[in-house]
């Protein structure tokens, strides 16, 4: 068969695929009769919420389904261009047999969501990459090594020779994902399955990885099955889109059709649930399922307590240095400035968004404010209406009162609730610790709290495991509200959640703020989310606040090169605003010494914040500040 004859046929066609999971309560149909094609050399995006069956579909193609699952029907026809014998039905092969193993990793390769855990920590990445090659080709050790170094160079390792002997834990998340891609590509597969390949990465890294996948595709002509829940990524990557919901396909079509003319109500709803830039002031996200709590929130008794005259919370010149060790046991120690002269102001009843990539120090700042950690220099002032006091000087009853006034909402709703406590115990524990109320009053409060976050009071007797991720995050918020705090520190509260649930939680936080007069410090790496919820935004990079402005100003007129890069790297679910990959290709925007003048900061100098318009301040090098003055 010639290449011309096969060109029109799809590389992979899935026909009426059914996957069942056996569980204690009978069988659960995770994939329910889906059919779609993956054409040669093109990218198909498989979109849906968690639990929609998109990952199960990918696992079925590779035949690496969990033990409880089995393919109950349908066909997966793989027409390998490398052999002319026509399509093979993957669903009919033995999962661990030699023919399937030859396809797996050799002709169809996969990269996973979690670059932190999908590589073995005990083996060098060189070892793990050539393992794939060794399994599928007969090669000499020298050829192996050469092939590995070539593919490392290809995926963007600056020093391929060194990369070969590097362990995964020595690499950043983005570099690990590059190593995963190298592993998947070393055998030059015909199909690459990418399961949420950039979900765990920072936006700038995400843009680079997406760019890498596109250029590798252009070069090798492989097809990509891209599994994602992020419509922004879909808009920038996919040729065709398949939308899944509860194991069924809701809608398929080309990228244009899907974005310009969504037909199915589910898809339309999904598009309205994603926060985007430039939303009209006051515009609300519409979650797929709205939380029925607006009435209850409106009916909550208002607390009358003294309002601070100035900011409720103020950080002044915070710095924190960590000491790291490396080398064989002792090695040299070196220091990392996690937080560098950070000042923040949180007004009562407002939201301050703190944005930055992983490792920029934003979590350290929130820990210092919570007083879980002491700063090396600087202070945190808290004002409960009786005048500002230094948080790190508080002790005894004053400290206890501060703990009551500032509460935390955590990122991971799965590990932040004790699985052995009922919801009632979780919600009343803060009251017990602070010795508030009689048992009857506590019960009444727990009932009020759970209804406040839109859950039913019958849920009080249940344990956290019987709730979904979004419901658990609502429990986490209810727990934080138990002590009627003034300030909530929200550390990435929606980054572990689906888009539709994310909209739900964000709306809930907004409503609660309006009703209870709460102040939020909202830490996130997602600019669109921060844009939706915050009043003022501070952008953080390498321990510095580089730019701070009211939300509208920041997005209209970003001054700092890092802020501009961050904004440019967010994939927008809008075909008219594609990512500018050329601009994002360099990795220079997160290194202060590479910033263009006057923003460039040399090692040891912190620069100064200069006001460029009312409320809009940018960090520039100290020398330039003097010239300007």
């Amino acid at each position, binding site marked *: 068969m010639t290449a011309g004859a096969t060109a029109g046929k799809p590389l992979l066609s899935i026909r009426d695929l059914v996957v069942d999971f056996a569980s204690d309560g009978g069988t659960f149909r995770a994939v329910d009769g889906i059919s779609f094609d993956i054409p040669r050399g093109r990218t198909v995006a498989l979109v849906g919420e968690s639990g929609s069956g998109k990952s199960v579909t990918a696992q079925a193609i590779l035949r690496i389904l969990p033990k409880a699952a089995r393919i109950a029907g349908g066909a997966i026809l793989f027409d390998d261009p490398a052999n002319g014998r026509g399509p093979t039905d993957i669903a009919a092969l033995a999962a661990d047999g030699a023919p399937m193993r030859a396809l797996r*990793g050799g002709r169809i390769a996969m990269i*996973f969501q979690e670059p932190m855990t999908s590589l073995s920590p005990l083996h060098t990445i060189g070892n793990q990459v050539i393992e794939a090659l060794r399994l599928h080709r007969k090669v000499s050790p020298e050829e192996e090594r050469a092939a590995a170094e070539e593919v490392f160079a290809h995926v963007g390792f600056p020093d391929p020779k060194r990369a070969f002997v590097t362990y995964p834990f020595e690499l950043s998340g983005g570099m690990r994902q590059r190593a995963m891609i190298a592993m998947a590509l070393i055998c030059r597969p015909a199909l690459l399955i990418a399961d949420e390949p950039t979900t765990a990465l920072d936006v700038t890294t995400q843009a680079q990885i997406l760019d890498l996948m596109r250029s590798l595709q252009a070069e090798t002509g492989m097809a990509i099955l891209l599994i994602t829940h992020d419509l922004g990524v879909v808009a920038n990557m996919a040729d065709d889109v398949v939308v899944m919901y509860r194991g069924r396909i809701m809608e398929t079509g080309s990228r244009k059709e899907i974005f310009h003319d969504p037909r199915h109500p589910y898809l339309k709803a999904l598009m309205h649930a994603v926060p985007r830039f430039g939303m009209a002031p006051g515009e609300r996200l519409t979650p797929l399922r709205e939380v029925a709590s607006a009435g209850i929130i409106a009916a909550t008794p208002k607390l009358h307590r003294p309002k601070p005259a100035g900011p409720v919370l103020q950080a002044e010149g915070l710095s924190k240095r960590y000491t*790291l060790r490396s080398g064989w046991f002792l090695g040299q120690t070196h220091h990392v400035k996690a937080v560098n002269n950070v000042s923040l102001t949180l007004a009562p009843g407002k939201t301050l968004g703190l944005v930055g990539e992983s490792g920029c120090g934003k979590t350290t700042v929130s820990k210092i404010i919570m007083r879980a950690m002491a700063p090396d220099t600087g202070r945190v002032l808290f004002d409960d209406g009786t005048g500002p006091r230094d948080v790190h000087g508080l002790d005894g009853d004053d400290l206890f009162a501060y703990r009551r006034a500032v509460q935390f909402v955590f990122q991971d709703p799965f590990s932040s609730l004790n699985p052995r406590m009922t919801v009632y115990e979780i919600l009343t524990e803060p009251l017990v610790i602070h010795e508030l109320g009689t048992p009857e009053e506590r019960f009444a409060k727990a009932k009020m709290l759970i209804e406040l976050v839109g859950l039913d009071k019958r849920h009080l007797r249940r344990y956290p495991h019987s709730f979904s991720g979004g419901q658990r995050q609502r429990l986490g918020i209810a727990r934080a509200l138990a002590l009627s705090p003034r300030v909530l520190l929200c550390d990435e509260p929606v980054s572990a959640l689906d888009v539709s649930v994310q909209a739900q939680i964000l709306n809930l936080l907004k409503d609660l703020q309006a009703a209870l007069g709460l102040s939020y410090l909202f830490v996130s790496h997602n600019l669109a989310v921060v844009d939706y919820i915050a009043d003022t935004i501070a952008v953080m990079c390498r321990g510095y606040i580089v730019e701070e402005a009211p939300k509208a100003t920041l997005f209209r007129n970003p001054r700092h090169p890092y802020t501009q890069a961050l904004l440019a790297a967010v994939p927008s679910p809008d075909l008219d605003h594609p990512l500018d990959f050329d601009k994002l290709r360099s990795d220079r925007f997160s290194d202060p010494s590479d910033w263009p003048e006057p923003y460039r900061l040399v090692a040891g100098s912190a620069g100064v914040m200069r006001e460029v318009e009312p409320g809009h301040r940018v960090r520039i090098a100290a020398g330039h500040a003097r010239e300007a003055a």
Partner: protein
Amino acid sequence: MIGFLARRLVTMAMTLLVISALVFLIIKLPPGDFLSNQIAELRAQGEAASAAKAEFLIKQYGLDRPAWEQYLVWIGIWPGPAGFSGLLQGDWGWSFEYDKPVRDVVGDALWLTLLVNLAVVVFVHLMSIPIAIYSATRQYSWGDYVATFIGYIGLATPNFLLALILLYYFNRWFGISIGGLFDAQYANAPWSWGKFVSLLQHLIVPTIVIGLAGTAAMIRRMRANLLDELGKQYYITAKAKGVPPTRALLKYPFRMALNPFIADIGNLLPHLVSGSVLVSLVLSLPTVGPILLAALKSQDQFLAGFILMFVALLTVVGMLISDLMLAWLDPRIRLGQR
């Protein structure tokens, strides 16, 4: 690396010093000592001559000195009646009970103890690792249930009872008398091929008896560890590369599951010495366990002190070995956090 080793060796020496003080203190805590008890007894029986000999011994070993001085003499950093002569100089003291130097009393028992325990360690690992891998990869299968059941029986059976049962049946079925570690004719004979074979024959039962509970416990723990690792993403990655199942299992999850066991070597060694006392008594094995028990009962201070110090040394050395092996096997420990 060298800096680390030097630091560890210094800490080890300090630890041993503290342990030696504690050991000495505890042995001295009950009123009286072996010799003064004996003298009182002999006086009561009117044997003045023996009592005089005992008093001579008291003088010779400085037992009439203050306790702190006795301690320093014992470890060898204070001149005793015979000059500097203590543990540090290799003089392990005198056993009053046996009326022989401690070295002669313990001598062979020490090496035999190490041999028996080494055999047990090897047995435990050889038995439990394959069974655990089988159990974990076929969770909730018949084989898994059988292994689990046998494991629980192994954990629940008192090992001295098992020793008695095996003692009887091995003798009845195979005609091997398995008390002790040698046949009677070799007991005090010099080493020969026959003696070696006899030793191996006699090792079988003690190894099984002492190792059974450990095997059962290790199967359970290894199975649980492996089950955790089997769900990890990197194992799925390996399968997605097309690695054959057995190779993927041994290269990735199994190696990850080994770490806690390597970390445990330090605890294993001393536990096996002191944990097998009952079995050694039942099987009349010439190991140090029963000797230690007797020495503690009769307040034979140098003998008891030496054996306790020996166990402490094993612990400390075991810990060092497991730390070094962990560093060798796990790059995250070797290269530190960055």
